[in-house]
């Protein structure tokens, strides 16, 4: 069997599509056959959800769904796959929770709906009464060995809890007095969930970050891994959706998003949102979607530790900017949650800008560099900038940007 260190290194270096099928699955299969480990019993409960995470898990390439069901997990309850109806189905859930108390893993998809005492999300009929999702969740969670919240709704409330949150949705960890492992994403990438599960089965609890996300997959800033990072450093920004440059200026949330999409990519393709010429919308972060909206608008003014900067103006004034330092700032402040608070306060909902007037544009052009922001003078450049840069950088580009 792989050591934990080897497994972590596999997850970091390759996509699971390669590693799980060729190494991990065989490994796991052998261990299960030899009774070294037991197939984990899983109860999968859907609350306020769009079912997107189940569909995403259906998209797993390796293991395939067939291998997953037959070799890796013992999925006792999931109403998308079950044959029997109504109480015949929910009895299985109750029975499993009783039989496997302290052993089973509870997977929750979707937000916990609290409006009207939770009755906006009834999921079962027991003893002549409708039963709410939140009450079933609390019952099962008290008996589960581990609770995994899959998808951003289960982890943090997600889109179900978007302002003004009519259904009073919250994340699973907000209603439970126990450890919850969050594997957010909208939807959660199948590798993120299965890799977490694999770690849990073989090595126990994976290392978690402040938001209880496994660092294995959510440990690095997306911005630092992006294929288009070079464009960012050089100040080559997209003017419109569909441009093949850095998406920062049209709303990319990569600089404050912790996920490995640029390396992992989606659905067995070489594609992911930025690869598709659209901004990352930060779907794995707490507060999504509100803190990411409007999706196609640059960051609002950020109160960064030490100074207040409008990233737009900073970038403009600095010309070819090394915003890398700023990225690091963002990372550091995320850890302290300071930025989160500022973002939440300033980002919802914003007025999309109308086209800028000539006077406004002039004002922006003459803006001085905020104190403490990197300046062009600090950029060490050994070669002249390629022609492309000189075309992309100047005013005309900016003007179109503001029409966004």
């Amino acid at each position, binding site marked *: 069997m792989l050591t934990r260190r080897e497994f972590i290194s596999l997850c970091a270096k390759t996509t699971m599509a390669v590693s799980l099928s060729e190494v991990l699955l065989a490994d796991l299969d052998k261990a299960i056959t030899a009774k070294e480990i037991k197939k984990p019993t899983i109860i999968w409960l859907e609350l306020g959800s769009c079912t*997107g995470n189940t569909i995403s898990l259906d998209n797993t390439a390796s293991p395939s769904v067939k291998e997953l069901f037959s070799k890796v997990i013992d999925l006792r309850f999931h109403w998308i796959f079950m044959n029997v109806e109504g109480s015949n189905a929910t009895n299985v859930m109750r029975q499993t929770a009783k039989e496997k108390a302290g052993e089973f893993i509870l997977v929750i998809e979707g937000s916990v709906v609290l409006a009207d005492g939770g009755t906006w999300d009834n999921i079962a009929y027991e003893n002549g009464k409708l039963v709410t999702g939140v009450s079933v969740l609390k019952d099962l969670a008290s008996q589960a060995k581990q609770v995994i919240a899959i998808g951003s709704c289960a982890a943090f409330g997600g889109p179900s809890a978007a302002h003004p949150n009519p259904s009073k949705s919250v994340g699973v960890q907000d209603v439970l007095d126990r450890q919850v492992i969050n594997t957010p994403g909208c939807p959660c990438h199948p590798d993120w969930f299965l890799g977490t599960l694999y770690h849990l089965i073989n090595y126990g609890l994976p290392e978690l970050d402040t938001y209880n996300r496994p660092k294995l997959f959510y440990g690095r800033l997306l911005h630092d891994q992006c294929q288009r990072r070079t464009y960012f450093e050089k100040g080559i920004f997209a003017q419109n959706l569909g441009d093949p440059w850095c998406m920062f200026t049209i709303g990319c949330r990569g600089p404050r998003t912790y996920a490995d999409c640029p390396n992992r990519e989606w659905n067995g393709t070489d*594609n992911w*949102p930025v690869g598709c010429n659209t901004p990352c919308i930060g779907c794995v972060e707490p507060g999504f979607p509100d803190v990411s909206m409007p999706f196609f608008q640059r960051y609002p003014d950020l109160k960064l530790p030490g100074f207040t900067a409008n990233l737009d103006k900073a970038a403009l004034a600095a010309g070819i900017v090394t915003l890398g330092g700023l990225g690091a700032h963002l990372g550091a402040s995320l850890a302290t949650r300071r930025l989160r608070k500022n973002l939440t306060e300033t980002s919802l909902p914003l007025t999309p800008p109308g086209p800028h007037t000539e006077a406004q544009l002039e004002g922006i052009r003459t803006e001085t560099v905020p104190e403490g922001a990197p300046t062009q003078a600090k950029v060490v450049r050994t070669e002249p900038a390629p022609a492309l840069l000189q075309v992309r950088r100047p005013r005309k580009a900016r003007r179109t940007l503001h029409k966004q």
Partner: protein
Amino acid sequence: METRTIIPLTRIHQPLKLELDLESDLVTDCRSSGTMFRGFELMLEGRDPRDAAYLTQRICGICSTAHGMVAALAVEDACKVEITRNAALMRNLIYGADVLQNHLRHFYVLALPDYITSPKTPPFEPQSSYDKRFTKAENDKLVESLWQAIETSRLAHQMLAIYGGKAPHQHGIVPGGTSMAPDADRSNRFRGLLKIVLEFVNEHLLPDVELLATKYNDYFKLGRGPGNFLSYGMFPQKGSLNPKYPAGAYLDGKLSDLDISLVSEDISHSWFNGPSVQEKPAEALALPDKQKPGGYTWLKAPRYDNQVMEMGPLGRMWLSGEYRNGTSAMDRLVTRTLEAKKVAQWMLEWLDELVPGQPTFTPFDIPDSGSGIGLTEAMRGSLGHWVKIENHKIAHYQIITPTAWLFSPKDKAGRRGAVDHSVVGTRVGDKENFSEVGRIVRSFDPCFSCSGHLIRPQGDIEEFRIC
């Protein structure tokens, strides 16, 4: 008479509650109910109109692209944007991939287990042995198809991600067109996957449904719908042809053009309160009220010219004149699989028509004010988004989903929704697991993530309906 309550009806996206009134083994009334509600309508209020194309996809994980598509159409209508022909083709390809994914998953994962003996392991166990008619060899073949179908639907989503970034909740369809222009390399990969999917449809899906239809031919008589059909049209091709699937209505045996102003909604038995029981989508003022007496579902009751309408693959093929065999549960399953083949073949044509390198995105400004309607056929029926823009922001947004049409409660005139209508009159041989009812209900491809909706007024209208 006895009343039985079934919740959750499984193998449906999100819980469905059924209340059945039974006289001995005859269903005399059926009240289907959506029991989960999130209220996406309100969430759109005050946001950037372009965001609707991404946020509304979160309503539903299996038909997300349909919402993205309709939201983009609605915003483009409001902003007076013309997208390029190349963009329209790209959208059809992205959306077509999701349609194929949906049809495969629906038939094999959700519907077929009602008829076969599934593998005897969880999550398929326990299972009912009631009325299983396949021989062991046939059954084994169908189970093998089921596993292959899951793999093939994964490939359909892979196809979607080639031009859409990821799936579900793709990024490629945006107001103004699509974000990726076609190139030869991607189109070739797309075509390769499409051919695998088409081969599966030809070699497995069509023979499998034929076998099913032969063994269970009594289901051509069960679960008959109201007989009225509606379609908003599907796969528009701006710049040249009309939609591949025509829009229209089939009412009381007569075919007519679609008149969107005839769509209204009734809230007599929904958990909503408003000044009027029946409202036009763009002017609806109802608010959610879970305690409302007489309410039993989060779904409203959309009506066309006050009539109950059915929709989906059967409705589309009925309106296009390709299929007029009947309106039963089996007809729905058969047309869904026939449609999968049609769509895959169209997609091959669209791939040939794409012009590599030609732009697919048209930049535009959001006007100070405007209003627009986006209409398309989602996988399971007619989906419409109504948007109103004020001060560059969304002032009002509303969605009417196919699930609301199909699973609508009774209206003020006492007319049942299409699903309830088709279940009433069924004889239940299996009171343990209600197999007959489950088979009929699932033939509609229900999706209850898409069911709740919410409207709010206050001068200007704020409204949104969940897919």
